[in-house]
């Protein structure tokens, strides 16, 4: 069969470069205008399909690398930093030979000459051009709109302006706009310590996604988080003094005072550049199904485009557009046919889902479910026997399932009776496994809407690549890597696929697969409802397994010990082996033993006793640890009580080197010997350790005390560190030097040693009461905020109360577990059940 010279076997037109031979021809030049989410994603998709085809140049108006704009809300709330939300760092541009002109807006497109001109007169020619100019926030034309302190919420500069405004004590904010963005802005500002009010024109918050009932529940939930709302409120004028905003005047005559005014009333496609170039414009820049504009050399993606009459402001459709665009640019298959939308609210702690015709309408029927006790509202809209929309509040776990039924046009007449109770009940009654709500999702069901990742891709990656953590699933599949709202679903898939091999991680999520309650909620109810045993907790919190699992049992045991010191009976069978036998299990099933050395101090008697134990029990390895103590490795389990008896006899106790509890207090020699020492750091370390030893904590706690800022005890990478200075003691918190390396933050400075001990005990107790099991201090600090911790320990009454609770708890904790076992406690742990099989022969 004859074949056109410029076409491949499938009849697709070959690019000119291919025909002539790539070695002779320069690559085609691809310019992308817009260094945001759409522009960079389009480039990634092109590179994935054909990495060598284009010489790529990206222009960005913002002077920084490509970041996840959706995550600006957590940055505003102080939950993430800019570094956390960078999608592609400088290395990505370098590795892919992409030229980035950041901070240089393109001003002109010359379509005749096929050249773009940017700020500063830079001219670059193109063969293909992608416009990803995004959108601009709408600024209401209110009087006073140009006052200082009036901002929009679109980019990192806006976030920085808002954070700066929140730093002022007692500062107040008004946010105009009760949509997704406005609510997130207000929530973030409240987290930053501001009082914030959302002013919304309509009577229902997020009225484009929520019906009146869900909107009401949302306003209620926001109120409990400190976000006030003014609904049906018409803004009239922004008032100010000396050029600085002081309030928002409403049409009803009231003025809401504020120091910051955020306009979050919507976005408008940014088409200025395209319009000036003479491209066809509607509401946005008009594109076809291959994302081409009216000029075939110019494509467009993202919020700037209008496709089949629709403009989009959510990330999922933009990713779909990028795929179609990349297909067109690399001569592979894939058109864009528009997107069906669903929304999840990202604001922490408010679980909201909405999709389709959530508010019903002609020819639609509603199925509604409410649970006042749990604050749950669900509404599923049925049209022609199929799901046409859904709005879920308070429990959005079934959102993906309803969305899947909706997109597939699945007839639901047969499951109608149980539909509202969700997938788990519905599938359970059909004879499928009710314990796993996601088990029955089809492999093709989309789990991550942002990145278009389906269930099969996730479970496949978990199995094939041996993924065990949420982080690794994100890294490999991108599922839950953008807005993060499908995190619970992805975790369920991990649990479902791995069973108990899945290690619980910190984050706002259930303790484990045995419950839907998070750590904070479980802790709160243990205290509030006086739950004092593990069965009582599991009953009250409706645990779904008979006796928990290896993840939740140690957590609950700790929460009960912390809540009811002296009252709760420790459940040995819910402790990891190391805390049951008070030694560290090693790879060969032997144990290591670490005696405590107070503040790293030891003596010839102690060293002699250790040497004798090593000889007597033929302990193969003796090692000095990083925590200034001595580790005896390779002890047989049966020998442990006898080893401890000898160490006890020389005055040594367990070093708890195995515990989620106080480990070591590392010190330098301080004023005793050092010519630079400013305080008695060794003495302080010893006193701290003697007071705090034996305490159980959510995760391990290591202390360091340095006698001067030279910091020989490395206190600034410990969970709690003290730096002695001439005028007193700096207390630092939140360091780590393990999987993560993190320096501490300065918590406070005190004048006396007594105050230093009080403050350290208080911060430890705050962590004991608020930390999630396995959450190190630095993670707890990132979650609750350093300011909140500081407020607790700097207020004398609060500090005293914390210290006293810690001291009370210590009355029951400072017991040497070795001595107890030497005295005969839990001998069954160390002795075989029977030796009658030992010499039996076949």
């Amino acid at each position: 069969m004859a074949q056109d010279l410029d076409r491949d076997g499938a009849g697709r037109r070959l690019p000119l470069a291919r025909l002539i031979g790539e070695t002779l021809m320069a690559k085609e030049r691809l310019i992308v205008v817009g260094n945001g989410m759409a522009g960079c994603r389009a480039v990634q998709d092109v590179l994935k399909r054909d990495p060598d085809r284009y010489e790529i140049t990206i222009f960005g108006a913002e002077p920084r690398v490509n970041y996840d704009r959706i995550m600006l809300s957590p940055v505003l709330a102080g939950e993430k930093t800019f570094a956390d939300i960078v999608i592609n760092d400088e290395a990505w541009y370098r590795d892919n030979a992409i030229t980035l002109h950041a901070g240089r807006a393109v001003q002109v497109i010359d379509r005749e000459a096929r050249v773009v001109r940017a700020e500063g007169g830079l001219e670059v020619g193109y063969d293909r051009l992608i416009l990803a100019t995004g959108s601009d926030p709408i600024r209401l034309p209110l009087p006073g709109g140009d006052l200082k302190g009036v901002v929009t919420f679109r980019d990192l500069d806006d976030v920085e302006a808002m954070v700066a405004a929140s730093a002022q004590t007692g500062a107040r904010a008004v946010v105009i706009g009760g949509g997704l963005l406005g609510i997130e802005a207000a929530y973030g500002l409240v987290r930053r310590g501001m009082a914030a009010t959302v002013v919304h024109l309509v009577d229902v918050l997020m009225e484009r996604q929520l019906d009146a009932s869900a909107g009401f529940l949302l306003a209620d939930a926001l109120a409990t988080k400190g976000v006030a709302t003014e609904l049906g409120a018409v803004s009239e004028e922004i008032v100010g003094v000396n050029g600085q905003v002081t309030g928002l005047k409403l049409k009803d005559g009231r003025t809401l005072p504020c120091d910051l005014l955020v306009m979050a009333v919507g976005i408008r496609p940014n088409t200025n550049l395209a319009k000036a170039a003479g491209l066809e414009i509607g509401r946005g820049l008009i594109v076809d199904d291959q994302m081409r504009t009216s000029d075939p050399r110019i494509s467009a993606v993202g919020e700037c485009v209008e496709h089949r009459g629709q403009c989009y402001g959510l990330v999922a459709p933009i990713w779909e557009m990028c795929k179609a665009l990349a297909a067109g640019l690399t001569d592979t298959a894939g058109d864009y046919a528009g997107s069906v939308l669903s929304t999840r609210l990202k604001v922490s702690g408010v679980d909201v889902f909405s999709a389709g015709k959530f508010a019903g309408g002609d020819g639609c029927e509603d199925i509604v479910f409410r649970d006042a006790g749990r604050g749950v509202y669900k509404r599923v809209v049925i049209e022609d026997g199929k799901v046409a929309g859904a709005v879920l509040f308070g429990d959005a776990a079934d959102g993906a399932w309803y969305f899947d039924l909706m997109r597939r046009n699945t007839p639901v007449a047969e499951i109608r009776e149980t539909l509202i109770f969700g997938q788990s009940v519905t599938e359970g009654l059909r004879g499928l496994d009710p314990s796993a709500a996601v088990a029955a999702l089809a492999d093709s069901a989309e789990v991550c809407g942002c990145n278009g990742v389906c269930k099969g891709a996730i479970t496949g990656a978990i199995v094939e690549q041996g993924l065990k953590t949420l982080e690794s699933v994100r890294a490999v599949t991108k599922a839950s890597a953008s807005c993060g709202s499908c995190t619970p679903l992805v975790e369920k898939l991990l649990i479902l696929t791995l069973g108990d091999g899945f290690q619980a991680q910190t984050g706002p999520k259930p303790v484990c697969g045995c419950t839907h309650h998070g750590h904070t909620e479980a802790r709160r109810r243990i205290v509030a409802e006086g739950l004092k045993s593990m069965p009582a907790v599991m009953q009250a919190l409706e645990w779904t397994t008979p006796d928990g699992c290896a993840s939740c049992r140690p957590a609950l045991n700790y929460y009960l010990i912390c809540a009811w010191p002296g009252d709760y009976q420790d459940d040995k069978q819910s402790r990891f082996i190391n805390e049951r036998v008070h030694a560290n299990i090693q790879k060969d099933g032997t144990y290591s033993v670490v005696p405590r050395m107070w503040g790293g101090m030891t003596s010839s008697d102690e060293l002699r006793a250790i040497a004798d134990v090593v000889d007597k029990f033929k302990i193969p390895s003796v090692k000095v640890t990083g925590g200034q103590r001595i580790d005896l490795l390779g002890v047989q389990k049966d020998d442990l009580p006898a080893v401890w008896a000898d160490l006890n006899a020389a005055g040594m106790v367990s070093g708890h080197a195995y515990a989620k509890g106080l480990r070591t207090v590392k010190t330098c020699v301080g004023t005793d010997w050092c010519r630079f020492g400013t305080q008695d750091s060794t003495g302080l370390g010893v006193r701290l350790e003697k007071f705090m030893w034996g305490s159980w904590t959510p995760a391990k706690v290591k202390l360091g005390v340095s006698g001067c800022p030279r910091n020989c005890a490395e206190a600034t990478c410990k969970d709690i560190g003290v730096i002695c200075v001439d005028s007193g003691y700096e207390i630092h918190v939140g360091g780590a030097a393990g999987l993560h390396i993190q320096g501490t933050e300065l918590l406070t400075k005190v004048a006396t040693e007594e105050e230093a001990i009080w403050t350290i005990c208080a911060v430890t107790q705050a962590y004991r009461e608020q930390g999630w099991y396995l959450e190190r201090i630095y993670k707890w600090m990132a979650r609750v905020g350093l300011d909140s911790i500081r407020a607790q320990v700097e207020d004398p009454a609060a500090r005293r109360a914390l210290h006293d609770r810690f001291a009370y708890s210590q009355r029951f904790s400072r017991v040497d577990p070795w001595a107890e076992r030497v005295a005969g406690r839990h001998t069954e742990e160390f002795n075989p059940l029977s030796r009658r099989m030992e010499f039996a022969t076949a």
Partner: protein
Amino acid sequence: MNVLVKDPIDWIDVGAITDIPSRGARRVPTPTGDVAIFRTGDGKVFALKDACPHKGGPLSQGIVHGHAVTCPLHAWSIDLATGEPMGADRGKGCTPVVPLEVREGRLFLGRI
């Protein structure tokens, strides 16, 4: 399933069921390595070779939950009835099941 196929030649009394803590385990040394006997929260008992199919970790030292134990070394969960790893580790080897009988509160291990 990986139950030893041979019938035991005799049964040896290794102790009382109450010698094992509920949701716990004890080990019994044998010439071919330790056997772990587990007692679950609902009062059932199971016996497995005391070695995880992954890296040989001592299962008797793990946390017992439901009818499963989580190995202390790398947190594999092993089904006590079959000795098989659960979840993603399913199919990656198996710990041998050891014959065990309960008679009037006493535990009898099968000698093969």
